[in-house]
């Protein structure tokens, strides 16, 4: 279970996260949607302390860390309970696909090299890249790199995997393979928070939708509920645009 309590974050005078409290249960697949610049990325980054919130608390797997006073040790332990899949893949450029996965297993989880490699192969197999284990990132396509990043996150057996727009840097024809890989993760029953602009995908894969605007979570509910009968005016407008786009696309 992940619990966020009264989280706030500003950059200078700009309040990006405004007092968000949120509980996410085990095995939930949460899609976080909303207009650009509303703090979705910042929220994800606050959860694993890549960015430190100004105030509030984050709890994960029985460990609670206060944004205002935390030890290095607690931070490290909290980070080890989550994994992140970045918009720009962020694979270690100097490591092969296999090493990208084993690195965290060996250095953060303390696995022996052979065990780590075995596990890495299993995860690569799952994302369909067993044959590219010894390739360096620059020789892989964007879609392949993102699938390695997903395998890297999966291998860590985290409490939660945080996805930040995992498909938005990809060519349209590569989006499908990555979405498919994420769907498989979802089916394994791993807790996930996915920031995405792919609303169809969100609706399809998520068990819960959060709509965020200007640092506040305006809507929180089951996909059908949020998409069909949104309570908030702002959400209605956002969904309308989406539905219009949808009609336009047809």
């Amino acid at each position: 279970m992940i619990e966020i309590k009264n989280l706030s974050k500003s950059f200078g005078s700009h309040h990006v996260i405004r007092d968000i409290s949120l509980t996410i249960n085990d095995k939930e697949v949460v899609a976080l949607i909303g207009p650009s610049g509303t703090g979705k990325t910042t929220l994800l980054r606050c959860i694993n302390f890549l960015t430190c919130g100004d105030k509030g608390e984050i709890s994960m797997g029985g460990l609670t860390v206060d944004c205002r006073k935390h030890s290095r040790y607690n931070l490290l332990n909290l980070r080890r309970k989550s994994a992140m899949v970045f918009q720009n893949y962020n694979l270690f450029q100097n490591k092969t696909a296999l090493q990208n996965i084993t690195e965290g297993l060996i250095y953060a989880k303390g696995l022996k090299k052979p065990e780590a490699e075995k596990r890495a192969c299993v995860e690569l197999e799952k994302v369909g890249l067993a044959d590219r284990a010894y390739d360096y990132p620059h020789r892989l396509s964007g879609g392949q790199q993102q699938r390695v990043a997903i395998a890297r996150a999966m291998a860590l057996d985290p409490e939660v995997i945080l996805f930040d727009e995992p498909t938005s840097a990809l060519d349209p024809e590569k989006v499908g393979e990555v979405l498919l890989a994420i769907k498989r993760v979802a089916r394994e029953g791993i807790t996930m928070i996915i920031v995405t602009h792919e609303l169809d995908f969100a609706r399809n894969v998520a068990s819960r939708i959060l709509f965020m605007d200007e640092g506040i979570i305006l809507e929180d509910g089951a996909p059908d509920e949020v998409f069909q009968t949104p309570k908030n005016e702002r959400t209605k407008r956002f969904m309308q645009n989406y539905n219009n786009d949808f009609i336009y696309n047809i």
Partner: protein
Amino acid sequence: MRFDVSYFMQTIVRFLPYLLIVIKVLLYSVGCGLILGSLLAWAKLSKNRVLRGLAYAYTTLIRCTPAVILLLLLYYGIPLLLNLLLGVKITNASKELFLIISMALFCGASMSEALRAAYTAISSNQFEAAISVGMTDFQAFRRVLLPQVVFVVLPPMANIIVSTLKEGSLGFTIGFIDLIGRANVLNGNTLGNYLLEIYISAALFYWVLSGTIIAGIRSLERIFGKHKITY
């Protein structure tokens, strides 16, 4: 004027022992320079404004000073200063030590710039990715950032080492007897009759040494650049 091949060969043999002195001075200068350069680069990248300011001021000052002047100032100035301030008399100041110190001061300044630039060229994404898989800051630096920094910094490093080697030949200005010092003595003794033979053979040592350094760094580049090779 004619070129005496047998004298030329003899000079090469005569210079051989002095090659060791040149290599020793180079290794110490580059070693100390690397430590100094790393500290300076760290200071330049730190959040502390004073530290940053000092590091940049030092680099600028050193870059704007001719090597000969620094060497002369250190060699004649420091014993004078010590005498004035502390009453310590250094009569037998080791010339080699002063040469190494001034080369290291130079080398450190240029290395800090190369290291800083290389570090900035590696995207902060790499660090974030590493800590997001649960590595400590140090592990992230050691396993992910440093190997990439080394690869980027190798070509400028080759330049810095080669110019340190060549600037090291200024040792003769304080009377240090290394390869060039020996060549000067020899040239004086033979009244300039064998000038070409003497200085070409001295140059030969520098060419071979520089070439070896450049080739060595090339092969390091191949080792650290495995991830950049396209087939």
